[in-house]
């Protein structure tokens, strides 16, 4: 049985080097971590720099000491901004707009997604493709005609649509509804049809099926879509810049950019603080709900 053993006995055997393949693997790991660290530094450098600057007084900034370190940290920028009425108005406007837009978006999207994913009606397939195409239409294409349309409506009916923050609630859904609908269609479509049939037999109408079965089962998708809608609403810059001009109507991104940058003198400490505070809500949501955030992103492409 052991034909080979005799041959092996005679041969001079060098001891095996354990772990040499593991060593190659360790080298690969080292380089991976090295480059990952490099990119993390590159990616996190601006926000960290924002934070460092926000702790500096104007004096320290103009003294042009090491920009990468704070020598006399102060919270004066924060206290100034957070007690400044105008800044708080920006925050308030942003918050209200975002929350309302999210609510409107989710209602429209969930209803439409349910209808497109489950119930076939004439033209539902084209509508689904149309939803996807709509998402590809950028806001920079639409803002000019919309501006003119709103001016037109103002002339004809006297309703002032320009320069009011609540106009944004009408505008933002163009950005959020298509993608949220798309995400929800994906999630709803992946719910097994047996669940519908079980609900029908149990006596549920369509509304009840939606509320009692689909929404709870597709909750991760709903959370992902909600986060997406909120982030897009909060971060939008073009529409508010074009459609709102008076200081008390501005939302946060536009407010910070236009009012803190007055003339030639830029108060960078305050600007960075404002920017950081403006970036805070999406960052906080991301920190706590990172998996849903990412699921929302990848759902669009991978759920096809």
């Amino acid at each position, binding site marked *: 049985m052991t034909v080979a053993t005799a041959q092996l006995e005679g041969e001079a055997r060098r001891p095996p080097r354990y772990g040499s393949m593991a060593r190659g693997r360790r080298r*690969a790991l080292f380089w991976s*971590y090295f*480059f*990952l660290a490099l990119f*993390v530094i590159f*990616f996190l450098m*601006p*926000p960290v*720099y*924002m934070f460092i600057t926000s702790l500096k007084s104007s004096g320290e*900034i103009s003294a*042009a000491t*090491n*920009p*990468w370190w704070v020598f006399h940290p102060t919270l004066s920028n924060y206290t100034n901004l957070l007690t400044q009425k105008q800044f708080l108005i920006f925050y308030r406007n942003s918050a209200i707009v975002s929350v309302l837009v999210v609510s409107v978006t989710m*209602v*429209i999207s969930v209803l*439409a997604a349910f*209808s497109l994913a489950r*119930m*076939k*009606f004439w033209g539902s397939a084209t*509508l689904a493709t*149309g*939803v996807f195409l*709509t998402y*590809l*239409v*950028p*806001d*920079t*294409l*639409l*803002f*000019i*005609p*919309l*501006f*003119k*349309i709103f001016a037109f409506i103002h002339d004809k009916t006297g309703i002032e649509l320009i320069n009011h923050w609540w106009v944004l609630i009408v505008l933002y*859904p*163009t950005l959020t509804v*298509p993608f949220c609908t798309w995400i929800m269609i994906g999630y709803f479509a992946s719910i097994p049809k047996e669940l519908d049939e079980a609900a029908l037999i149990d006596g*549920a109408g369509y509304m009840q099926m939606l509320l009692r079965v689909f929404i709870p089962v597709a909750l991760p998708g709903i959370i992902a879509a909600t986060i997406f809608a909120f982030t897009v609403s909060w*971060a939008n*810059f*073009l529409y508010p*810049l*074009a459609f709102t001009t008076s200081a008390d109507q501005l939302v946060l991104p536009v407010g*910070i*950019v236009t009012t803190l940058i007055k003339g030639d003198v830029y108060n*960078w400490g305050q600007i960075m603080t404002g920017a950081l505070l403006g*970036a805070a809500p*999406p960052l906080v949501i*991301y920190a706590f709900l990172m998996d849903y*955030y*990412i699921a929302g992103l*990848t759902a669009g*492409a*991978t759920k096809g």
Partner: protein
Amino acid sequence: MAEAVARDVRVSPIGRRKTARALVRRKSLVAFAMALPLIAVIAGLVVYPAAYAIHLAMLNKSMQHFVGLGNYQFLFRRFIEVSNLSWATFWSWSFEVKLSTFAMVVEQSVLFAVSAVIFKAVIGFVLAHFVHNIPQKGQRKWRGMLLVPWVIPPAMSTLAWLWLFDPSYSAFNWIFTRIGLPAVPWLGNPYWARFGVILDNVWVGAPFFMIMYLAALKSVPEQLHEAAAIDGATWLQKIWYINLPMMRNIIAITALFSLIVTFANFDIVKILTNGGPIDQTQVFATWAFMKGIQGNDIPLGASVSLFMFPILAVAAILILRNVRKRTNEI
């Protein structure tokens, strides 16, 4: 309601067909009603404005007369005018100075979009592989940190870049001068300004590519890599022969999608350079804004925005084709 259903079922065959049809009709009516808000949004806020934009683009500045393609003639005439004037004696000099703004806008938009997307795709691809390579437990942490640029509202992070590129206080220049390199004029110089815009854009968008590619990478079965290892492939060959072909679809979709978004980008250019210096970083969106809203020439603005449309349409069709291909494969 279950009772009602049961009662229907016991009806005669013909009757059952009638009630079934009524049920279907009612169902599709309900479905249509549910989709109505969506249709309203799309029709009223997307399709109608887009069509209206086409109409607007064909009016004159005061919007009294219909001028057909007059606006485009205006934009392009100066384009062509330049080419004629250009060469002769002062060839290079007059070419640079007299290049019509709109031609620059087109050139810059294309330059930004193409170079930014290429960089983002490469960085995203490389990063996805590195993240996939480290043990599972650590991946979440690193992925979390690497996605931060995408999460921050671009308007806010661009302010940070603006501060980093400040002519007097640039933190980058502070480092450069300390190690003996000359200070860079960043946003004051057209070439550095363009570089800055692209850098900011790549910084914001690369994480998105990383996430998408990472998801695609994870769907490649590990056994294929083992089979390739036994077949004799090095890590580079594995990426070239297995990862790349199998991720081809996602790579295309993500790149095309980003092309559309980058092409139409507004926030970064507006805040960082406002199109300057001397309009050398203007893109479609910012120029349309400048002409249309600030310059009060709505039709001109509309025609500028619309110019993006053909390119976006081509990209959109390509995306759709790839998405369909993906659902049919395997």
